[in-house]
């Protein structure tokens, strides 16, 4: 479904991604792991249209997205849960959710979409009219995921959704991500919580210093000594 063909992304003159190729099939749950500063956020933001791709191509079902304006990416059914959530903090929870369904194709049945999000995250129901900035970290993450679900995505991008959350909430988040994927939405998950990410993923990539350093089934990656040493703290 989604295909990246040797994409290169730079900040100013400094390249952050070098010829990264990656593919996600419909319904897959693909995970990208890598150390801090490897370029994971840069990668996921490029797929959401937030970063300009300098070289290479991003295609969705064969359609080239590379030259599209940033606001057109979501029309391909791509929605992002960005790093550190980036809610519209001055707006209410409900307004954040409804903004998620701003694209025309997601507007019909908005009330049902909100209801669906509230069924996934019942804790949000009584905070609907609170300013999003006043919520706890876990609840803000729920709003960020809910906002993305409101866009009715085919591909959901999640950038470190467990960052800064209490362990019990992290478990719940992973359950939710698994459920979303089981509902037919392809997921690209970037995680520092490598053990947990590899447990839910159907396939994984390793990104190091802006390059793909490995790819395969989680079980295969978990068997690699390099991965065990670098990401799972083994000696």
């Amino acid at each position, binding site marked *: 479904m989604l295909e990246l063909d040797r994409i290169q992304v730079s900040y100013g003159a400094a390249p952050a991604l070098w010829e990264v190729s990656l593919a996600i099939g419909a319904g897959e749950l693909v995970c990208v792991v890598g150390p801090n500063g490897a370029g994971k956020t840069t990668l996921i933001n490029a797929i*959401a*249209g*937030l970063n300009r791709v300098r070289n290479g191509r991003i295609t969705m079902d064969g359609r080239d997205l590379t030259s599209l*304006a*940033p*606001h*057109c*990416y*979501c*029309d391909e059914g791509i*929605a*992002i849960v*960005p790093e550190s959530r*980036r809610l*519209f*903090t*001055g*707006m209410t929870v409900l*307004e954040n959710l*409804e*903004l*998620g369904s*701003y*694209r*025309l194709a997601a*507007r019909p049945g908005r009330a049902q979409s909100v209801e669906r999000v509230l069924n996934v995250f019942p804790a949000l129901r009584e905070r609907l009219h609170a300013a999003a900035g006043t919520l706890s970290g876990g609840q803000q993450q729920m709003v960020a995921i809910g*906002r993305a679900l409101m*866009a009715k995505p085919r591909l959901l991008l999640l950038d470190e959704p467990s960052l800064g959350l209490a362990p019990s909430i992290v478990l719940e988040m992973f359950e939710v991500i698994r459920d979303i994927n089981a509902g037919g939405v392809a997921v690209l998950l970037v995680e520092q919580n490598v053990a947990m990410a590899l447990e839910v993923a159907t396939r994984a990539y390793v990104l190091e210093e802006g390059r793909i350093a490995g790819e395969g089934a989680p079980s295969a990656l978990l068997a690699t000594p390099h991965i065990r040493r670098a990401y799972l703290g083994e000696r």
Partner: protein
Amino acid sequence: MPSFTLLAQSVLSGIFIGALYGLLGLGLSLTWGMLRQINLAHFALAFLGAYLTFQLTHGAGWDPLATLLVVVPCFFLLGASMHWLFARFAITPFNSLLVTFGLTVIVESLIQWIWTADQRLMDSAYGAVRFKLGALYVPLPELLTLVLAVALSLAAWAGLRYTDLGRAMRAAAEDAPIAAAFGVNERSLSLLLSGISAAFAGVAGLCIALSFTLAPSQIYAWIGVVFAVVMIGGLGNPIGPLVAGIVIGISESLTMALTSPAWAPLVSFSLLIVVLLARAKKI
């Protein structure tokens, strides 16, 4: 001590002038708060609108309110094109101040060239109409200004709060890239907002023409107090300028009634400083 009637009349005229401050501040506040552009030319636009109203009413015999049918769409286009140019040349907030100051001078010269530097007073059917409210006089032009200011401020508030476009504008003002990821086309919304702001300046121009003598240099007379109103009201807040404008208007006119007119400007800026200090303490 002035009589009760005189004080009440002062409060009333404070409300009326305050409404005009608020109406002038509305567009300025929206583009400043949401697009990060400080549009000094907003005042020049308002006076251009006032002179156009004067021309159509005085020269061509139109009803003053009917001039809005021409002024509003023209100013919308004017504001949108100005913003298009700013975006085209990637003008920063500070540079926007300089560029729009330049524009102000250009518009002033243009007005002077077309209508000369002489004072102009619009004779309209509305000018002489006054209602009596108990012992108080309510002039129609001022009442019209109040109604327009309240209506436009509320419309802007409701638009930003309840419509998809308005919410998208607020979202883009807070985090444009993420708003774009959800389909918000920031560039076209900015054009829309700039157009609406300029149209508000045009409406303010009608109100100025209805109640005041026009002279090109008057453009600068409003800048200080309206900036104070915008800052007190909160940047980007659609109701703030109206509320702050009325508070300042009443304080000014009471000061004038109780002391002397010379003290009036002191009031608005003392209020501004107090509010800014109080806000700084809260943070």
